[in-house]
Every structure is written in structure tokens, then in C-alpha cells.
């Protein structure tokens, strides 16, 4: 189960937002009860009294009302000003910039998937992956957000608020997970036909697990030992797949679609559309348009004699 709720914060930033949310919740609840109580009181009171001719009492009623209106307006204005100050304080705390980010991750939005790059001063230690962002717990991670086509928005509710991915501009967002876990997020800015199927996972790991993950992610695709998997690799290299997908360690180096070097270790395919199982992967390869209509992966006819080895090969890409 992955956490995907503003009410289940797992990091300092989300906890700050949660605290502000609770403040608004209790203040608005109190206002609701008070106003509702007055409303009910007026209803009940007017039923008990017999109707009077209001014309000759007009001035007295207005004078009394004026005092109440002035007091209620004053209380409302004061409450709003206090809430405004609270919001400003929360905003200031959230936008406090981490001067020395421990980890920089580029997240590039595409229709309708997330391209993820781990930056490093040593280019040989850079990692390219898709739709999953692994982070170590307890460290501030700066996400540098941009887009290749239209405006998307990064929203992992358990970790922080929303930040847009705007083409031609780089935004930054700092996230930090307190404890290991899987935190789901999704695109929060309408970006086309499959905006609803553009989810991602932020997977927080303990420091040792995170280092192990980075080491395994840096490895290129291993040479398959199984002849069926080798046949599957030949199918991949001979089919339209190579025009869009990359598998490091093979001649396939295209960057139009998600990097598949470690596809078998991901939890979902299609940016959170399907669980990553061989059956779902087979259905996705055979007809992505019926699962995610309008997405940029075309229907490519493959015989069963080609599809099965291809699946075997893709399952070796852990």
C-alpha cells in the first residue's frame, strides 16, 4: 500500500502543510458551528413568537442589529487577517531553500510519463529512469522540474505540495521522507488525453538500500544467458521499439519514450496505469491504445512467437 494523502504526511514539508490544514479545519469548523447555531436559534425563536407588525418597530430593530453586525464583521475580519498571517508563515517556511541539496534529481514531464535523471558531477554515475523516484530517507532531495511539451504538475501529497513543470523553465521542489515507504503522486495539471493516468511513485529507502539501488541502477542491461531471452532481445532490436526506447548496454539509445534498462524492477507500467506483471506487460505491448487511449505508444503487431521471447527478455531487465 502506498501513501497518497495530504492527511498522511511523511516528510517535514508535508507535515507543515498538514499543520496549516488542521488550523484551517478547526477554525472553519468553529465558524460553521457558530454560524449554524445562530441560524438554528433564529429559526426556533421565530417559530415561538407570534408574528408582529414590523413597521412601527423598524428603527429600534435596526439600531440593535447595527451593533451586532459591526461586532460580527470585526470578528470575521480579525479571523481572516490571522489566517492570512498563518498562511504567509507557512508559505515562507515551505519555500525556505535548501542551500546545499544532498541529492539533485531532474524530473522532466512528458505526455504522459515522467522522465527521471539522477545528476552527478561524474557523468558515468548519472542514472536515467522513468516514473519512479527513489530517494534516501532523512535527506533533502531537490527535484528540478521541467517539461518537454505542455505544463504538468508534480504532486506527491504525502511529501509536499504541488509544483508545476513548465516547458522552457526549471522549477525546484524540495522533498524529504522521514521513513521508508512508497509515496504515490500524480500529475496535477491537466495535460491532455491521459492526464488521469500520469502517476508516479516516490520510493524512500534507508541509506544502505538506497546505495544498493543506485549501484544496481547504474549497471547496464546484462547479456541474457537464456537463448529465449536472447531471441527476445533480437525481436526488440528488430522491431519499432528501438525508435523510442533505450536499453543501456544495447544499441537501443532513443530517448523519446521511457528508459527500459531496468523495466522489470519497476512497480508499474504506463506511469502507474497497470501493475508491472508479465501478463499486464504483454497486454500493454500488444495494444497500448486500448489501455491508455491516445498515448504516444503505437499498436505494433507482434506474433506470439515474437511476443513471448520479448517478454522473457524484458523480465531479465531487473
Amino acid at each position, binding site marked *: 500500500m502506498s501513501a497518497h494523502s495530504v492527511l498522511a504526511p511523511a516528510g517535514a514539508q508535508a507535515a507543515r502543510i498538514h499543520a496549516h490544514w488542521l488550523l484551517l479545519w478547526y477554525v472553519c469548523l468553529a465558524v460553521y458551528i457558530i454560524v449554524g447555531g445562530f441560524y438554528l436559534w433564529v429559526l426556533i425563536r421565530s417559530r415561538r413568537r407570534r408574528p408582529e407588525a414590523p413597521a412601527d418597530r423598524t428603527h429600534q430593530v435596526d439600531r440593535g442589529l447595527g451593533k451586532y453586525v459591526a461586532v460580527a464583521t470585526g470578528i470575521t475580519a480579525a479571523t481572516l487577517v490571522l489566517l492570512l498571517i498563518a498562511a504567509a508563515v507557512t508559505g515562507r517556511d515551505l519555500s525556505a531553500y535548501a542551500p546545499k541539496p544532498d541529492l539533485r534529481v531532474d524530473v522532466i514531464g512528458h505526455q504522459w510519463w515522467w522522465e527521471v535523471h539522477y545528476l552527478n558531477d561524474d557523468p558515468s554515475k548519472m542514472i536515467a529512469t522513468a516514473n519512479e523516484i527513489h530517494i534516501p530517507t532523512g535527506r533533502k532531495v531537490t527535484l528540478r522540474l521541467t517539461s518537454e*511539451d505542455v505544463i504538468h504538475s508534480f504532486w506527491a501529497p504525502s511529501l509536499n505540495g504541488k509544483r508545476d513543470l513548465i*516547458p*522552457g523553465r526549471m522549477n525546484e521542489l524540495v522533498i524529504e521522507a522521514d521513513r521508508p515507504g512508497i509515496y504515490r503522486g500524480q500529475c496535477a495539471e491537466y495535460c491532455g488525453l491521459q492526464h488521469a493516468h500520469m502517476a508516479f511513485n516516490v520510493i524512500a529507502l534507508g541509506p544502505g538500500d538506497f546505495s544498493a539501488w543506485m549501484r544496481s541502477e547504474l549497471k547496464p542491461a546484462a547479456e541474457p544467458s537464456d537463448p529465449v531471452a536472447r531471441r527476445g532481445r533480437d525481436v526488440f532490436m*528488430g*522491431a*519499432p521499439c*528501438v*525508435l*523510442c526506447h533505450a536499453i543501456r548496454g544495447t544499441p537501443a539509445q532513443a530517448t*523519446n519514450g521511457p528508459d527500459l534498462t531496468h523495466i522489470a524492477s519497476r512497480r508499474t507500467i504506463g506511469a502507474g496505469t497497470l501493475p508491472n506483471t508479465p501478463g499486464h506487460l504483454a497486454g500493454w505491448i500488444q495494444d497500448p*491504445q*486500448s489501455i491508455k*487511449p*491516445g498515448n*504516444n505508444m*503505437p*499498436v*505494433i503487431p507482434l506474433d506470439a512467437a515474437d511476443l513471448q521471447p520479448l517478454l522473457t527478455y524484458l523480465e531479465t531487465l531487473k
Partner: protein
Amino acid sequence: MRQYYGTILCVAVALLAGCQREQRSLRPLPANSSVMQQLPPESGLYPGGVAPAGQIDNPYAGNAWAIAQGQRLFDWFNCSGCHGGYGGGAIGPALNDKVWVYGGEPAQIFDSIARGRPNGMPAWGARIPRDQIWQLVAYVRSLSGEEPKSATPARSDGIEPTPFTIQNKVKGETR
């Protein structure tokens, strides 16, 4: 009766607005096995100037969404690497003019893409699905103004420093 003129007018406008709705086909086109085997003429010249009948039409002709997909694929598959951005020509011939070395009919352009041409045009038939080749055909024809202006892309996919449209290029205006 006169008090209903407004209602009748609104209903008529609403009904007319439903006409001519462009089809956006997200499913693959029905298989047409002959399109890969049929050999259209390789030249644009015909005796007497009359093109032979029987060439396969582009099912995506005049479809704005398909042409927009072709615009995306033109860069994705690096057609612009040889033919230049917007078909302006580089080491490959320009596609935004009226000169067609191997014919400018849709079937002939499909053939050029799918089976390749001498002097450097690769054969993409095994790499690009048939539907996407037709989308590229529609886009290539739109580059030289052969597609309706209403379906031709009005802007590029990326950020342009100056306003630039394919229609401007086709009309001969410079940037």
C-alpha cells in the same frame, strides 16, 4: 410564432455546430495488406499529365490531429536530421517545396518512407507502424501546402523565438 425565433435559431446553430466533426482515430487503421506490396509509380511525371488511377489514398488526409502527430513524429524519428527542421532541406532534399524526386502523391510518399530511396533514404517499413507512416505522409504533404490550410499545423511543438507557421513558409514569407 415570432417568440420562438430565438429558440429556433439557437437550436439550428447547435445542430449545425455538430456537422463536420473531425474524427480522431486512436485505434489502428484497418489492415490494408496491399499498401506495402503495391508499387506506386516512382516518378511524378506521367504521359499526357494524367496520373494513373488506383493509387491508395491517405486515410489521414486532411485530418488535423493526424498531421499534428506527423509533426511530432518528424522530430521524434529524426526526419528533421536529414531533411531539416520543417522540411527545409539539409543533407536530404527539402520537403516543403513542389519538387518531388519520387512523386508527391500520398502513395508515393508512403513508398519513399517505407521502402527507402536511393542515395540515402532508409527503408522505415519495419520500424515505423503503418499508421504512423500515413501520419508522416500527411505532415510531409502539409509542409508544401498540399493539405487543407485548416488542417495544417499553425505552430511548432516547441518554443519559437519568433512567430513561425508552416503556412507562412508555404506562402513564401521569410522568417
